[in-house]
């Protein structure tokens, strides 16, 4: 059983909603990238989504794009990200790590080489934003090496396609808003609840929802109907500009602790 599957089984057994923070690897500080990962776990993360910086993150909003730009300006690349995961694994062999990013860095690195190195480093899953199911034949070497391919589902996904996604989902299915920019304002919580309920009925894999979740209140609203909550933009924004390992860890904790508490109180 993979770390991701094991973690969701534990959550289910404990009737808890998972908390999945997203951070851009190397932001706010490459030196403290690993310390930040441990801090996220300390603050209650069940799975870590680690963003691989890319120069042209066309499906992300400006906050995450700027985090990517800052990391790239400090020279962060795929090799660093893999090294940090390996270092993280020296102290944490339980918390699943999903790399989230775009295809070009992996394509340039080489699919086979990436697959082997990622597994060796202790990466559990890969979410390639610009590689939909139709193009994911290129990710076959990753799946063969044992990396789970996390798929996205969206409010625009047609019913027949949703069935296909649910059938192919590994690890968990990530239900996203419209790039987290303004999409969240368009659907009411009850709309989202109905859609997620439909997906959960179809999908073997658990469903994580990222829908403009910014704080304890919005996380709690989603906890009622999702297996896990993904929090990205608001956390990246909170961490931006943090200086030193203590500041970074304190900010991560201050941000995530109330959300963790809200999820557990549900």
């Amino acid at each position: 059983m993979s770390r991701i599957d094991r973690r969701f089984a534990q959550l289910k057994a404990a009737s808890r909603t998972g908390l999945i923070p997203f951070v851009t690897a190397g932001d706010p500080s490459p030196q403290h990238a690993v310390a930040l990962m441990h801090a996220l776990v300390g603050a209650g993360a069940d799975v870590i989504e680690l963003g691989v910086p890319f120069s042209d993150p066309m499906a992300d909003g400006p906050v995450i794009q700027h985090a990517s730009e800052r990391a790239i300006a400090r020279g962060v690349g795929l090799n660093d990200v893999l090294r940090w995961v390996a270092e993280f694994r020296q102290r944490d062999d339980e918390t699943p790590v999903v790399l989230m990013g775009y295809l070009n860095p992996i394509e340039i690195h080489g699919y086979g080489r990436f697959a082997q190195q990622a597994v060796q480093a202790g990466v559990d899953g890969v979410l390639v934003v610009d590689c939909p199911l139709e193009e994911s034949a290129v990710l076959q070497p990753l799946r063969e090496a044992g990396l789970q391919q996390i798929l996205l589902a969206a409010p625009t996904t047609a019913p027949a396609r949703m069935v296909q996604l649910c059938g192919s989902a590994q690890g968990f299915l990530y239900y996203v808003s419209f790039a987290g920019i303004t999409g969240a304002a368009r659907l009411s919580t009850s709309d989202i609840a109905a859609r997620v309920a439909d997906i959960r009925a179809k999908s073997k894999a658990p469903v994580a929802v990222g829908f403009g979740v910014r704080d304890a209140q919005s996380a709690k609203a989603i906890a009622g109907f999702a297996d896990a909550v993904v929090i990205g933009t608001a956390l990246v924004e909170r961490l931006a500009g943090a200086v030193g390992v203590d500041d970074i860890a304190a900010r991560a904790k201050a941000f995530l602790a109330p959300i963790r508490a809200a999820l557990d109180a549900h």
Partner: protein
Amino acid sequence: MSKIDFSAYPDEHGRFGNYGGSFVAETLMAPLAELTEAYLRLRQDPDFLAELDRDLKYYVGRPSPVYYAERLSQHVGGARILLKREDLNHTGAHKINNTIGQALVARRMGKPRMIAETGAGQHGVASATVAARFGLKCVVYMGAVDIERQKINVYRMKLLGAEVVPVTSGSKTLKDALNEAMRDWVTNVADTFYIIGTVAGPHPYPLMVRDFNAIVGREARVQVQEQFGRLPDVITACVGGGSNAIGLFHTFLNDEQVRIVGAEAAGEGIATGHHAASLAAGRPGVLHGNRTYVLCDDNGQITETHSVSAGLDYPGVGPEHAFLKDAGRAEYVGITDDEALEAFHLLARTEGILAALESSHAVAQAIKLAREYPKDALVLCNLSGRGDKDVHTIAAREGVQV
């Protein structure tokens, strides 16, 4: 080389051999499927095609002539240089061939709002123009650096009723404008049509934009035969994203005897690293929804490009060009900023034509080719746009106060 039927591409998945495809986030899959379905139907619809032809004739002013540049040819002292005068189209460039087509698609799909990205501003102006023509709302994303370089076109778009949104992320040029337009589309997909200006992006854009620009080559092939009784020996066009080039090339792809050469922006020289020659100096990768040649570093990060011409300043290229390069059907070479400017001046003085800086790259390449061929040979060059928009850039570069 085994025989390839180049008219058979892309396949149903939008692939040109290894290139093309639909590398986009899940949120865009539904709108792309909707667009693909609509466009594949419309491209066979006689009523739609007749409507398009009418607008190309009476609004754009097609056909554009093929002009034998006799004084330029004599000056060069080689083959005869023929210019396909896309600069004479309404709005002054080939870009309107595509925007008219896409606006008609948007209207048939019932989308009242159009968004566009633009580099040099030509596609933005062409989009704003057709939006006004068809009564559609138009928002144009443009890199802040390009806005500075192309003030006249920015003002032109505003006069035409479009909203121009400056993009300040990344390198503040075309690729960043493209990212921002994609985000807008993802957010407002229900009522919005994204009118991409080049033969890149996810399927069906490389197909659709090529179809709408292919009239350039279709006309030119007939015109050259009418005037000279045979096909040209070599054809050339500038390649940024590659829409004017594929427009000229596509009809000629199965004419094996016609040599095809694309001119990319070599900027300050390919060896300096300051260029935008994705095919000549890049490698296969994935950018903006398609697999193609891209300029990137070993971490897969897209690198910043340089060209004196904003319209060629792009780190990717249309996937059909990538396919033609690998298939050996077309050659892609670099033209430096200096060579393009020299060609600009030479064409102005010998023929009384101010070419766009983009098109000046093609003219420079046509001049090089003309020198290689005997005097009775025919070099057909796509003069894709007029140079009025670039007068300030050229003056500034040459230290002239206008």
